[in-house]
């Protein structure tokens, strides 16, 4: 049986500041090495200054994935030399002195399969290395520390996936979940990265590192299974190793570096005292958590009688469910759901279009009212919606400007 396990790295892009200093967590708009300070550059004498919000957001992720949340949290140093690491150690979490990571074992249902979560940990992202130069001889490495110290949540799963399709379904659910929690924007470049381990029946475990997007993760897993199966078919031993994902050639290649043999000399980070998260704080966080996707779906189905499939689409996308919940659902919930899932989806199918859209929930209320009262036809409503998204004008104004106010055919 094929076994696949994942280690997902998710940046908490919605936070104001980095994990241990006041620099911006969203480093992307800065020129190289301008979103830095003495702390995230690891200058002599500086100390980490823990961002409490990161603890809260990461705990919310743990709760949403049904993980246990320990009362005492600790940070550890992972010691290794690398140019993207300003202190030459990374502050991360580990469960060597009992469960001290932000989240313990949990699980999530994907389709009809239960995927177990091993643990969730909070850590700092290293800087970014950019390789330039044509040949390997002339290659230069540039370091940009803007990213160094960005809050990163690592989600480790048990090897519960059996095929790439389950991996994809899981990633979709996870992306929606993180977006719904308002902790991260998974569409940002580099916000989601992953390592995977893959083994087939009779073979050893292979780790694939350096997968830069969820899209590539599915591809990498697929490639790796095919590669291992063809080795197996020819009776070639599948030796345990670490491989890297080459995102240009879309293949995995054996990694010559002996990373897996590094001794990280983990020990407690003395500069950050143990963090006690009392029951009351857990309860408070739980009460502040946005409504889960599944609870939204259930509400849409039972309260408004929205069809299962429509409720599915509506609930899993925060952009749509926010619009829906803010519009006047007391009167025309079904009509509004219908407008969103049939007409609006085509108009705002990219992030840019969503950002540019002038549509507000009140527009949806007005549109649904107009349709229900027979003021405009569904076809006219669709045209009006197009105008609203573009200009943000009131429905009334659009109806008179474009002369859409025909009495509908039904009447």
């Amino acid at each position: 049986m094929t076994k696949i396990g994942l280690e997902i790295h998710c940046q908490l892009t919605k936070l104001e500041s980095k994990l241990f200093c006041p620099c911006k967590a969203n480093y992307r708009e800065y020129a190289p090495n301008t979103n830095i300070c003495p702390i995230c550059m690891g200058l002599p004498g500086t100390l980490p200054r823990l961002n409490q919000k990161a603890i809260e957001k990461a705990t919310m992720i743990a709760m949403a994935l049904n993980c246990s949340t320990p009362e005492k949290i600790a940070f550890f140093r992972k010691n290794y030399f690398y140019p993207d690491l300003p202190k030459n150690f990374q502050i991360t979490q580990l469960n060597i002195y009992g469960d001290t990571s932000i989240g313990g074992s949990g699980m999530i249902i994907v389709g009809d399969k239960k995927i177990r979560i091993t643990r969730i940990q909070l850590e700092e992202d290293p800087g970014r290395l950019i390789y330039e130069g044509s040949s390997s001889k002339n290659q230069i490495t540039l370091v940009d520390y803007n990213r160094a110290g960005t809050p990163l949540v690592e989600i480790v799963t048990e090897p519960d996936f059996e095929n790439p399709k389950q991996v994809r379904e899981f990633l979709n659910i996870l992306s929606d979940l993180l977006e719904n929690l308002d902790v991260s924007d998974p569409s940002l470049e580099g916000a989601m990265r992953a390592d995977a381990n893959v083994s087939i029946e009779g073979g050893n475990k292979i780790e694939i590192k350096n997968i830069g997007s969820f899209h590539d993760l599915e591809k990498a897993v697929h490639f790796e299974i095919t590669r291992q199966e063809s080795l197996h078919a020819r009776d070639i031993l599948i030796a345990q190793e670490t491989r890297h994902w080459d995102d240009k050639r879309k293949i995995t290649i054996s990694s010559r570096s002996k990373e897996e043999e590094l001794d990280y000399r983990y020990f407690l980070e003395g500069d950050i005292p143990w963090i006690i998260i009392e029951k009351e704080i857990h309860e408070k966080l739980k009460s502040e958590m946005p409504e889960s996707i599944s609870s939204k779906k259930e509400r849409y189905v039972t309260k408004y009688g929205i069809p299962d499939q429509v409720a599915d689409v509506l609930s899993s996308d925060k952009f749509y469910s926010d619009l829906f919940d803010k519009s006047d659902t007391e009167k025309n919930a079904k009509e509004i759901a219908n407008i969103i899932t049939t007409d609006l989806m085509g108009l705002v199918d990219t992030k840019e279009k969503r950002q540019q859209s002038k549509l507000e929930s009140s527009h949806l209320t007005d549109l649904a009212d107009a349709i229900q009262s027979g003021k405009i036809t569904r076809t006219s409503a669709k045209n009006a919606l197009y105008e609203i998204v573009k200009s943000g004008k009131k429905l009334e104004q659009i109806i008179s400007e474009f002369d859409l106010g025909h009495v509908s055919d039904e009447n």
Partner: protein
Amino acid sequence: MNLKLSALEFVNEVKNGNLSAEDFVSATIERIKKIDGTLHAFLNVNKKAVEQAQLVDKKIKSGKKVGSCFGMPLSVKDNICIKHSKTTCASKMLENFIAPYDATVISKLKEQDAVFVGKVNLDEFAMGLTTEFSAYGPSKNPWNPDYVPGGSSGGSAVSVSAFECVASLGSDTGGSVRNPASFCSVVGFKPTYGLISRYGLISYANSIEQIGPITRTVKDTAFFLNILSGLDPNDNTTINSGNQDFLDGIELGIEGKKIGIIQEMIGEGIDPAVLSATNEAVSKLEGFGAKCETISIDMVKYSVASYYTITATEAGSNLARYDNLRYGYDFPVEGFEFNSYISKARTKFGPEVIRRMILGGFVPSSGHAGKYFLKALKVKSKLTKEVLEAFKKYDYLVAPTVPILPFKIGEKIDDPVALFLVDINTVLANLTGVPSISVPFSISNGLPIGIQLLAKPNDDKSLLKAAYSLESTVKLPDVPI
């Protein structure tokens, strides 16, 4: 100009208009010029010190609000960052490192109108107890320049003892404030872990070290604690000391207090002169109505081993950042794969630092951690338990700060294990986080002996009371320089 003023005396004199900060600071700078060639306490002298003192005088004259230091000249151990000034850690690795920010303690002192006359010598990265491991040469003991001044805050203790400043900031990882204070006959204080912010102190073993003042008198130490203590958002390990006034009630005495004499710290290897000074100190404490008796803290015998294992582990990690990529000295980075680059980029560390970093790579490594690092942590927690247990019965513990007298420069430098053992009486306070102070007590054959008092965590204020009582019984000769 009388440069022997204590901090409190200086403040009074300037406040009352008997003395200008400028005159005092100028005379201090002159003094440094005159004698520091012999003593080598300073690595860097602040050229703007006199100018800065002038500004304070102007403030006083114009009737503006003046900070509580009134232009007092202080020296600062060169592992504490002062903005726009060199901070070398007495290492060639940081020979040209200019700190772009102020340590929290420096900001606080600047707010109180202190004047920093210079950065003072230490063992490289604070690793040592003689100041002989400075990459810029040893400091000399003002009581006898052939002798070590102790360390690692040797420059701090020398500069205070030889009147090159009124007081100094040192750092204490295993005795580095108290040991040189004892060897130079000044007061050295290691606060409860977390009482003073470490932000801006270049880490050696961050889980146990503290910045501490080195002063002429116990009251001066209380004066500086009033300025330096308190929560700091930039140091998550700082504790809320509740804005206490450490000077308040310092003269109230110790009648009826119970004091434990730590047996393991006056045992084998102790110098007879140190032992008799300790006995004398005990009888003086009893003279104040305290009740003293000998106690045993069993784990003391493993404390030095535990201390060196833990500090080496943390040092190995804390010093890993000095790779000459972001700051440091010019070093050709081209043509090296990163691991070989790293092995070549760090050659300017001195021998003691290298020794501890190698040890720090080994003791916590997989396969060895159980035998060394984890065992050291176990000793630390057992020792802490024993000490806290002792403090249920005793208000204070007492022992000589160092079991031997200052020794000659070069005498022990080739025997690291013999040097390690000099730490036996001081590491306890660091491993357990309790406050500890060294008070000058006597002079034997021209060499100083200090007595160490300890109290339970957060009892720093009470500790100063006991130290003040002990100090009040002592009249020592002037330093012969």
